[in-house]
């Protein structure tokens, strides 16, 4: 069993190592010779480990069960986050390995919380790597590995299930590798389209690619201190708003669109709720922020951007929402609890879970009024999905428990209660900015090192939807099996 786990771990490290080719190429292109070795050495190390293990264990049987799948995924994510921190640390851009690790975890988990105050001072290649970590972590490195490495075929679905978000995980095609390939192809295509649009709208090639990575991964890292707002280009803001929302949608729906199953998309409960939420939030914020008819266009753009940024858990900014009117801030605060769609790159509780709980609440109220009436819970037009209710309820319970625990950790480290609470929501929901001392114009650099490590745990737990990491930490996977 250990061989199976190590095999996957080393292959994924090899894959992430390969992805360093892009920043390495940019470093060479931009003449950033000082950071070439920071990318080259980890890349070669990743390849070396993968090739060595392949030679050593290629004839070993591939066995996998559910418990090991969860443990393996948790282990892999910790490993790639630490591996991704190596180029950042050795680039000399970060004061300590803790900061580099925080930035890497924040990147892979698509949180987008940064410890840096002067992002524009970083080498371009390092900035690109930060954004690329969002893209790799967005749809999931393990899904990418399953798509690209046929050797992982057996047990691949279990691994992807442990990595994918949302309560209902289904295969699009009979082979999980084909499902993973399809989703990654859609992801790649959307990223390419956005990068081209941003480039066309006036951004440089690296900026366009970096922001496309960040947007599609719903991460939030930017190449500018003032995030997307620094460009001052309305077209760029609208493009980012549109693609942030696209990245918030369940990627399997794009596959259904491509295969002509429009009815499935129209019936999708989560998409319908998401559209309604976004529409209502944008209207509310625009109405609250309204100053004059002349400024309406700008207010609408700013409101739509910020709503898309928070509901998609991206964390980009064009405006400091802490300077907004209180009612508009409350709308943004409420969106911290929502999250994107299941099967998307967004974090948070997920719209489908709130939809299920909302429908169950409606059924409960109706049942009080009509005790003899029989109710069913329909999701995506399919009735009889009541079995999801306890699963979702327990997830929301654990999620909120983790938020409270993280709030306590923040308060212990000296943060005020509201900052600690919104910071916890932001970390567990992989959003990035919070309120108070951790608002959109602030950063996480000043936090104490132990709190940064706790926040790293919270980000990872949020990205892997808690259970994966709980199982790993609870040692149900390794120790109980070996005892």
């Amino acid at each position, binding site marked *: 069993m250990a061989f199976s786990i190590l095999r996957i771990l080393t292959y994924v490290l090899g894959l992430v190592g390969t992805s360093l080719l892009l920043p390495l190429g940019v470093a060479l292109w931009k003449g950033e010779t000082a950071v070439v070795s920071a990318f080259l050495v980890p890349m070669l190390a990743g390849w070396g480990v993968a090739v060595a293990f392949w030679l050593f264990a290629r004839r070993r049987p591939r066995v996998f069960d559910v418990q090991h799948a969860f443990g393996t995924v948790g282990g892999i994510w910790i490993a790639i986050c630490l591996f991704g921190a190596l180029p950042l640390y050795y680039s000399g851009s970060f004061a300590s390995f803790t900061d580099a690790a925080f930035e890497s975890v924040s990147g892979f988990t698509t949180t987008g919380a940064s410890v840096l105050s002067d992002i524009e001072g970083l080498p371009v290649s390092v900035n690109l790597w930060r954004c690329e970590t969002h893209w790799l972590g967005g749809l999931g490195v393990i899904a990418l590995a399953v798509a690209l490495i046929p050797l992982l075929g057996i047990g691949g679905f279990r691994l992807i299930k442990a990595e994918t978000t949302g309560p209902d995980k289904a295969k699009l095609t009979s082979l999980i590798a084909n499902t993973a390939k399809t989703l990654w192809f859609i992801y790649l295509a959307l990223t390419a389209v956005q990068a081209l649009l941003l480039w066309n709208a006036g951004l440089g090639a690296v900026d366009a690619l970096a922001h496309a990575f960040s947007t599609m991964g719903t991460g939030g890292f930017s190449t500018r201190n003032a995030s997307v707002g620094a460009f001052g280009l309305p077209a760029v803001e609208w493009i980012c708003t549109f693609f942030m929302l696209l990245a918030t949608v369940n990627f399997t729906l794009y596959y259904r669109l491509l295969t002509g199953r429009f009815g499935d998309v129209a019936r999708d409960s989560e998409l319908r709720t998401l559209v309604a939420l976004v529409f209502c939030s944008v209207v509310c914020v625009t109405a609250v922020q309204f100053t004059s008819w002349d400024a309406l266009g700008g207010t609408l753009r700013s409101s739509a951007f910020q709503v898309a940024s928070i509901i998609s858990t991206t964390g980009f900014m064009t405006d400091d929402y802490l300077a907004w009117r209180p009612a508009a801030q409350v709308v943004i605060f409420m969106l911290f609890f929502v999250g994107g769609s299941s099967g998307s790159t967004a974090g948070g509780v997920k719209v489908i879970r709130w939809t299920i709980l909302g429908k169950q609440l409606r059924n409960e109220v109706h049942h009080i009024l009509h005790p003899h009436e*029989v109710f069913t819970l329909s999701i995506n037009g399919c009735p*009889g999905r009541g079995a999801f209710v306890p699963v979702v309820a327990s997830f929301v319970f654990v999620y909120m428990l983790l938020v409270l625990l993280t709030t306590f950790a923040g308060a212990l480290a000296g943060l005020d209660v509201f900052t600690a609470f919104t910071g916890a929501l932001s970390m567990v929901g992989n959003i990035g900015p919070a309120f108070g001392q951790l608002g959109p114009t602030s950063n996480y650099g000043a936090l104490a090192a132990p709190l940064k490590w706790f926040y790293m745990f919270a980000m990872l737990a949020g990205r892997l939807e808690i259970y994966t990491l709980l199982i790993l930490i609870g040692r149900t996977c390794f120790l109980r099996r070996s005892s």
Partner: protein
Amino acid sequence: MQLARALLLERNDVVLIDNDAERVRSASDQLDCTVLEANGNNLESLEAAGIASADALVTLTADDEINMVTCSLVDAVYPRIQKIARVRNYAYYTAADVARRRAKSVLPASRPLYGIDNMLNPEVEAADAISAALEHGAIGSVIELDADFGITTLSIGEGSPLVGKPLSKLHELEGWHYLVAFVESADGTTSLPNGQFTLAVGDQVGLVSRLSEIPQLGAYTKTPQEKLRRVVVFGADRVGALLLARQQEKRHVSLWRRLFGRSAPDAYQKLVVVDRDPERCREAVERFPDVRVLCGDVTDEALLSEENIFSFDLLVAASGNHELNLVTAAYLKSRGVKKTIALTANSSYGDIARKLGVDVAVPMRGTVVDSIRGRLRGGRVEAVHSVCNRRFEIVEGYVSPKSRVVGKKLQDVMDMGAFLVLLYRPADGKSYEMPRGGTVLEADAHVVLITPAGDTRLVARFCGKE
């Protein structure tokens, strides 16, 4: 038994096979036919019963698989024999229908599935009958003859303008252009009326009209008419579920048609179903998202009051307990439900239902027996419907080219009081019309007759020999 009795009445040679000794003994005592105690799915037993010389095989056991396999077995050796099977499993029934249509489009000469020429599902037939009655306002049972015409059985109420008038004078009433097909008096006597016949309060009349005009018939008979906006269905098992499925199909009207077109009134009905079985309720709520499902006993006064069932416009009692259906329908009618339809075991419950105040009684077995008789009648008969507690039958068929009535005027072949030609459609015609005395009968014309039950001689005069 009921089918065998009907077939014997039509002077058919019937052999009944059953493996239950008690049922065989009972049938032998009651029926004038050969009754064998044997397994029907054994070819040797069937050959001993004379299957080789039979015209048709009808399999009606409680087991769908046995019915289908027996037909398949006989088809392998005697493909020319017409085979009819009762199939209660709706999945089998629809699957066979789909397979038949697909096979026809791919291979027109292909044999039917399992060699079964006709699959009959009693629940489907009953649900269709209830659906037809419901669609036409539940003012009486409706026999739909084609897309345009039907025969509605109505009761003459107090103050009806039809009372005391000879039928030949009814055309003087404003807007009256209907035909009285049969009359069942309050004392139980039945007749095929002539022009001098006068109607009385309490008589049941069968009126031929266009389907779209059925709601207007109530104004003449003084049958109370209600808009059926709120409908409660008792029983979510086979017939109830099929009925709900039919109603759900009618509800699927596009937004455009809802706003600007003419859509079925059923599309706006509020449906509630009551069943005591939690599992059936769960299935119903998942299958019919637009229908409210109540789990409980329909005799539970608390449930009826809480959900305000007494104020509903229509109750359809369609559970598997036919006696309870009648009692429930009668009770709820007495408590304020405006119209009631009850599914009953057979047509002999019709009188009881009427006496209890139930508006429409749909006999479960009667629909199947009629369906089988229509298919076995031979000649150019298309369908047979029993009315007046099986004393008369309405026969749909084509005029045989060899028939002696071809080329004659209707008034020359009519035998008033013995039979009536209700509707006529020329061979090249598109829709039915009510025939007149001067109508000349053409070969291959479509006719609807009403004759005394079992009078095959009369039918053969029009539609050819059996």
